[in-house]
């Protein structure tokens, strides 16, 4: 177990390192200079800026510098937004909002998805099952921006139940973004739960439980779900990544001042240090979450011998 965790952590660190490296060289491959734009400052100023950020150094020196700074948690400064605003501050200020929305979205998606999946599997072939399957198949075919805009148009604005402007102090502002963001994972989780639930409902021990005279509720949620939940857990990692990137769209649609909206803005602004810093941060976040899910997986089901598999 310990060996496995150490191996996975090392692997994750290497992945983060690889992403940082790729990001660095990709950004260096962008033609032009970040300080040159329509209203270019005089050449002397550009030279001074280049010297300040080490852009006049050879590439390997810049790389070493960047990596060194990265280890210290310094992700550089924005070149387009407010002057010299550190990227790490942008992340610190905006990530909590994104994380809150993402966590609520994943939370409700998991709870509702698992329950719907169980219901669907238990009533296999009945109208309830068919309806749920249709809804879920449609749900995973609908890009998140469609869902977000539908909700925005139908339920936001004056005279409608939810405010048009995002206000972090009321819970009402969170309802629609979380609903839009969680819908896709919910459908996905429901489908996966249904599949693995069907498997475990066919097992012998369910027959035993039934023969003992246990109630439906206990059989489904206590006996069958325990085994059915494990495969579902493996899909949680990719869903976290999906929710994170889906957040870009949802935050843009609902004008939420989260990290995703900043990221999208910095892409259209060509604010490379922000793109770079945010990418590395978000990628590391996803990788660490995946790692946690993987280790949890092992904790939940001791039958799985991960050291052999991975």
């Amino acid at each position, binding site marked *: 177990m310990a060996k496995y965790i150490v191996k996975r952590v090392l692997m994750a660190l290497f992945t983060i390192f690889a992403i940082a490296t790729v990001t660095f060289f990709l950004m260096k491959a*962008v033609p032009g200079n970040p300080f040159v734009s329509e209203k270019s400052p005089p050449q002397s100023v550009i030279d001074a800026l280049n010297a300040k950020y080490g852009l006049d150094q050879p590439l390997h020196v810049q790389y070493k510098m960047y990596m060194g700074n990265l280890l210290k948690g310094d992700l550089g400064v924005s070149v387009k937004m407010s002057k010299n605003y550190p990227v790490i501050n942008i992340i610190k200020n905006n990530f909590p909002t994104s994380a809150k929305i993402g966590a609520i979205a994943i939370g409700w998606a998991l709870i509702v998805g698992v329950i719907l999946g169980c219901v669907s599997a238990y009533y296999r072939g009945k109208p309830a099952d068919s309806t749920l399957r249709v809804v879920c198949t449609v749900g995973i075919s609908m890009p998140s921006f469609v869902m977000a805009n539908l909700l925005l148009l139908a339920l936001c604005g004056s005279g409608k139940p939810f405010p048009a402007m995002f206000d972090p102090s009321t819970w009402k502002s969170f309802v629609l973004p979380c609903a839009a963001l969680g819908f896709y994972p919910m459908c996905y989780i429901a489908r996966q739960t249904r599949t693995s639930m069907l498997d475990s409902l066919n097992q012998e021990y369910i027959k035993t439980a039934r023969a003992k005279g246990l109630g439906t509720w206990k059989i489904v949620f206590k006996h069958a779900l325990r085994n059915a939940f494990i495969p579902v857990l493996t899909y949680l990692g990719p869903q976290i990544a999906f929710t994170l990137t889906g957040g870009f*769209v949802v935050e843009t649609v609902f004008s939420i001042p989260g990290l995703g909206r900043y990221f999208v803005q910095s892409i259209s602004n060509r604010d490379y240090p922000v*793109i770079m810093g945010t*990418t590395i941060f978000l990628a590391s976040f996803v990788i660490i979450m995946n790692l946690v899910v993987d280790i949890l997986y092992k904790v939940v089901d001791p039958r799985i011998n991960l050291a052999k598999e991975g």
Partner: protein
Amino acid sequence: MAEKKISPRKPFSLHLNEEAFDFGLLAPDSFSAADKSEKEGFIPDRVPTSYWKDAWRRMRKNVVAMVALAVLLVIVLFAFVGPLIVPYRYDQFTDAQNLKPWHYSLEDQQAVDALLAEAESSRLTPEEALEKARAEAAAEGRKLSLTEEATIKAKAKQGNGDAALTEEDAIAQLGVKAKLFGYSRQELERKAAGEKVFPHVFGTDNFGRDYMVRIMIGARVSLLVGVFAAVLVLIIGALYGSISGYAGGMVDTVMQRIVEVIQSVPEVLVILLISVVLKENFNDKLSTSTGLLRLMFDTVGTNVIAMFIAFGSLYWVTMSRIIRGQILQLKQQEYVTAAKALGGKSSRIIKKHLLPNCIGQIVTTTFLQIPSAIFLESFLSYLGVGVDIPMTSLGSLCSAALSGLRTYPERLFIPAAVLSVMILCLNLVGDGLRDALDPKLKK
């Protein structure tokens, strides 16, 4: 099976024929060619079936998949044949701007205009309103104060004193019914004059471009992006997976470590990044490049190429894992050993023996890549790193529709609906394919 005909002179039969052991019976004519009636015994009474025919038979029984396939065909026709029928081009600016997907007949429009004009003329000018108010006040036997006069004038000027009709009010008042399809007034006049005018079925956008043609082209771009990305994934994934699986040992370990690293990367994030950077690079090169490269950039667009590369560089991982798993199993089979013993080269064994035997899995996985590529393309286009203007895709149409969402919600909903239906059908057909090609996997 038909009843077996036992004939002592069954030609070229490998079955042991008891009578044949009696060498006296083995006359020279035992080896003569079979005549017609004898040959009939060899015609199988069932039409031989192939892997694909078998799969198609299973697929046809799957109602959901067949309906999805039919809808998909309709969408493909819509995207590829539609633009040939509609006489507008997707980038053609016309005077018919901002049309809704419905219209009012010419007479109705005139009636509405007349009502509006009447309302306008019956409205009092500020001076007239003042006169009227003064007269009313005089009749009551009092005089208006200066402030009262000013308010009356201001009210009349704003027009909310009297009937300030909007077009919607007038339409509601007259009870005019909207008719399907968008026509501009000029087009209606031309139509009334006997000219044939093709309607704007989904209206037009703010440049007067026919929205249906734009959706057709958008659907075409999305489909093509999906198919090409899937082919790219197939090529890279199949190569990588088969080499890794077949070689085994150290090569496999190293290759799988690389796969693990790539797999733990959040793809969308990196694809976004790669597309942004490559697009900048290509746009930079575009000004200097000539010949084939230039032609490629001009016809496909730098963004789409950037997207392909980004997609191809990350999405092959799933495909390679599936193929590797299959090959690991298949290479234990006797026929592979036989091929090796006969001196077959590795590349030949992979190509001729291993890959064809996991074709079901390959087809299914490739097919299911298409919707996920379209999904991703729409996401990127929505964020503004998709296809270049004036080319369009369903994602960029949705994104462009956002600016006028409250007034023209149909501009978002029509492409979004086409996109969702397309992805839905592709998913359903893909599921059907999996069940048909690989019945063992059926859940």
